[in-house]
């Protein structure tokens, strides 16, 4: 281990240059904090949207909502934009806000350790360089790691293996016999694309999901024109979409009559698009809508029914050198297998060792499921913030809406640490505990905990992923930084619980939200 350089620490070390890390950077800049660094293991920004470039990759929340309110984009070409356009939006933000100079690419974080005496996080990286920050932001992404699934015989396959999140653009699928393993959010986007190209497409399904129709459209020129000239119009449209999705929570977060309505819409979609009763049965989910991520597609079912497509629902017994053998005893042979099998998610650990006060290891504490306070802080790990942390996932709304709330909270806390010369801002253990008791209690009544198996749950059925409520509720909880919930230690050594003195937080407003268009003229803070 190399000794951290004895330079003055940054105010913030941000880990990850995806939507979360970059959004945090923008808001830090706008609140006057310019002394931070972003560590990114890849060679470019974008995270999810840099990695997921498979054919058909797109967001399934409307772009107007799947974007930052502080960086509105009037140029979205469609209702639901493709990955290239989303990546372009991210690049555009990086350029407009001059973020490149803060980013250290090819820098993989391997450990983060809190130095209590200095009130500093030491962030170690693969090449031995260490970075120091008075605060640290874990923005490494919940779905950033993908590897081939652990299916028997997978190494024996002699054809081409492609993971949806590591697409091989040099491979030509034309005329090939192709298998797609998995029928989740990525698969339903890939399948219609490949079905049109491959000679034969075979889809391996374990559990079918609910598919609702998608109302995609090309943005008419005049709308773009309007949004360019009147960001308020775009803001209003975004607001409208936001409330549409908030309403969906009534059916997707909790099991209510609206859940039945959603199931009926999905059921009607299935009946309209699939005539054969047995295929319909194979495609009918046996869990409540909302329990797993909803799938959104108009062309998935038709793609499965093309003459050159086949849906296989037998369990996979093994992968063989030539193809896939299922438990019905039959082998199907392929030139390529596409694995749309999801991501390696650490529900019960951390992607690298995170060491807090008195040497405690976060992975130990999260062994039975991740827990945090308001999804951003963990007791015993002062000055450390999480984006997309425990119980912050939306089932019905844009992840970026939630992320914005987290970012505002993180920026406000960081400002507090800087302005008040704090050594440590550490959430109180019992506050975190109470918060989680309430969280798990509320989760009991949600669709996610209604009995289906999903990546939201640990093997023990603990839900450390999803937020049981409306985005509005989440935003309200994040809108307030209650210092009373924290042990606040000043650099002078004064502790809030020694003195029972609670630091009042001035309700400072962050600079007004800006659109990309406006910031083009606004002076982006340099240096």
């Amino acid at each position, binding site marked *: 281990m190399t000794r951290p350089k004895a330079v003055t620490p940054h105010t913030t070390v941000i880990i990850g240059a995806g939507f979360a890390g970059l959004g945090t950077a923008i808001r830090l800049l706008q609140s006057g904090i310019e002394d931070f660094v972003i560590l990114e293991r890849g060679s470019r920004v974008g995270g999810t949207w840099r990695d997921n470039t498979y054919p058909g990759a797109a967001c399934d929340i409307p772009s107007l909502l799947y974007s930052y309110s502080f960086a509105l984009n009037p140029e979205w070409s469609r209702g639901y934009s493709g990955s290239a356009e989303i990546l372009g939006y991210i690049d555009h933000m990086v350029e407009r806000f001059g973020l490149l100079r803060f980013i250290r690419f090819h820098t993989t974080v391997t450990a983060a350790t809190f130095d209590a005496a200095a009130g500093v996080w030491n962030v170690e990286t693969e090449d031995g360089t260490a970075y120091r920050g008075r605060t640290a932001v874990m923005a490494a992404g919940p779905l950033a790691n993908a590897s081939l699934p652990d299916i028997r015989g997978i190494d024996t396959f002699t054809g081409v293996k492609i993971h949806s999140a590591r697409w091989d653009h040099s491979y030509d699928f034309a005329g090939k016999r192709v298998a797609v393993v998995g029928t989740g959010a990525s698969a339903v986007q890939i399948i219609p694309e490949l079905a049109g190209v491959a000679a034969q497409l*075979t889809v391996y399904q374990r559990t079918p999901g609910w598919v609702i129709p998608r109302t995609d459209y090309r943005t008419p020129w005049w709308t773009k024109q309007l949004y360019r000239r009147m960001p308020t119009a775009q803001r209003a449209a975004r607001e409208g979409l936001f409330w549409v999705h908030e309403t969906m929570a009534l059916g997707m977060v909790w099991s209510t009559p609206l859940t039945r309505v959603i199931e009926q819409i999905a059921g009607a979609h299935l009946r309209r698009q699939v005539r054969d009763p047995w295929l319909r049965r194979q495609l009918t989910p046996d869990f409540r809508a909302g329990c797993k991520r909803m799938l959104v597609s108009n062309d998935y079912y038709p793609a499965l029914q093309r003459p050159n497509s086949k849906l296989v629902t*037998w369990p996979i017994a093994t992968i063989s050198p030539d193809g896939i*053998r299922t438990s019905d*005893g*039959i*082998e*199907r042979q392929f030139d390529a297998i596409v694995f749309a099998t999801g991501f390696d998610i650490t529900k019960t650990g951390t992607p690298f060792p995170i060491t807090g006060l008195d040497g405690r290891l976060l992975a130990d504490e999260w062994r039975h499921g991740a827990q945090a306070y308001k999804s951003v802080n963990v007791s015993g790990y002062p000055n450390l913030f999480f984006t997309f942390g425990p119980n912050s996932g939306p089932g019905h709304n844009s992840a970026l809406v939630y992320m914005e709330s987290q970012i505002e909270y993180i920026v406000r806390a960081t400002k507090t640490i800087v302005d008040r010369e704090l050594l440590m801002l550490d959430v109180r253990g019992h506050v975190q505990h109470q918060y989680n008791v309430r969280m798990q209690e509320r989760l009991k009544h949600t669709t996610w905990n209604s009995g289906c198996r999903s990546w939201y749950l640990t093997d023990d059925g603990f839900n450390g992923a999803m937020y049981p409520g409306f985005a509005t509720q989440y935003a309200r909880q994040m809108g307030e930084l209650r210092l009373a919930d924290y042990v606040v230690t000043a650099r002078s050594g004064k502790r809030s619980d020694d003195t029972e003195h609670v630091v009042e937080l001035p309700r400072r407003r962050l600079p007004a939200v800006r659109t990309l268009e406006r910031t083009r003229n606004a002076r982006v803070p340099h240096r």
Partner: protein
Amino acid sequence: MALDLDAMLVKISERQWALADIDWEAPGAEQISAEQWPGLKAFMADLVWIENVGARGFAAMARMAPTETLADIYRYFHAEEQRHANAELALMKRWGMLDGDDLPEPNVNIRMAIEWLDRYADDMPLSVLGTVIPMLEVALDGALLKFLLDEVHDPVCHQVFEKINADESRHLAVDFQVLEMLGNARLRRLLIESVGKTLTPGLLIGALMYIPLLNRMRNNIVGMGLQEERLYAAMHRFKNVGERSSGTRRVPTYQVLKWHADMVVNRRHPYHLLANSMVWASDRVPARIFGPIPTWFKELTSEPVAVETLPAAVAS
């Protein structure tokens, strides 16, 4: 002793086999004598379809399983029964019993079973299928397959049925464990379930379909030279295993089936008059009353490697 279903699921996933594991061209096919051939052909055709009917039963059970583990097990069993049917078809092909690539015609009673399964099985309570399936499996495993191995000396046939029997022993273990669990479920719930849910038109029709199906099978195999006692011994086994467990005895459907089995094994019971006249009647059911054959029925194949994904040169 309770069976550890999680361990069973692991075991099942590790014991998978494929048609490609077997050399279907190996010598020994000539062991089938000319006089054996027609009876064996009819018997194998029935067997294939019964496996397929069992498969559909497990598919329904996977939907109603109370735990994820059991649902996973039933998903495997669904596929495994299909695998048995596929392997038996491959044997038929080896013995020259298939006309080209055509599947054998299912008899009327099978067609009725298919119709019933397609219409009602998904809505049956687990206690119904959970009792009927073990009964069929015991009959298959205990009587039919053992008989087949005594009569047929083709080593490939023995190789195939060794694998099938290994699967079936796991099916039976789970079947009886589930029967036991059903019995231990709170009595009140069971009663409500059996009175309220069981006595549906679906079940009555199911019984009407099941009776001639069983008797036709019995008649077919007796025609092939199987001593009826063999089948009856199997039925007794169903009873005996069940009797050993207090839970199982408490399942109302089990009691009904046991009572039924008692009648089946009593050759002089007037039941056979009824059952055989039902076979007779079902032979006179016009084919057009059946709906189109469900597509799951056509998933059967005797080809170890699916033709649809063979390279064009090989497939043509």
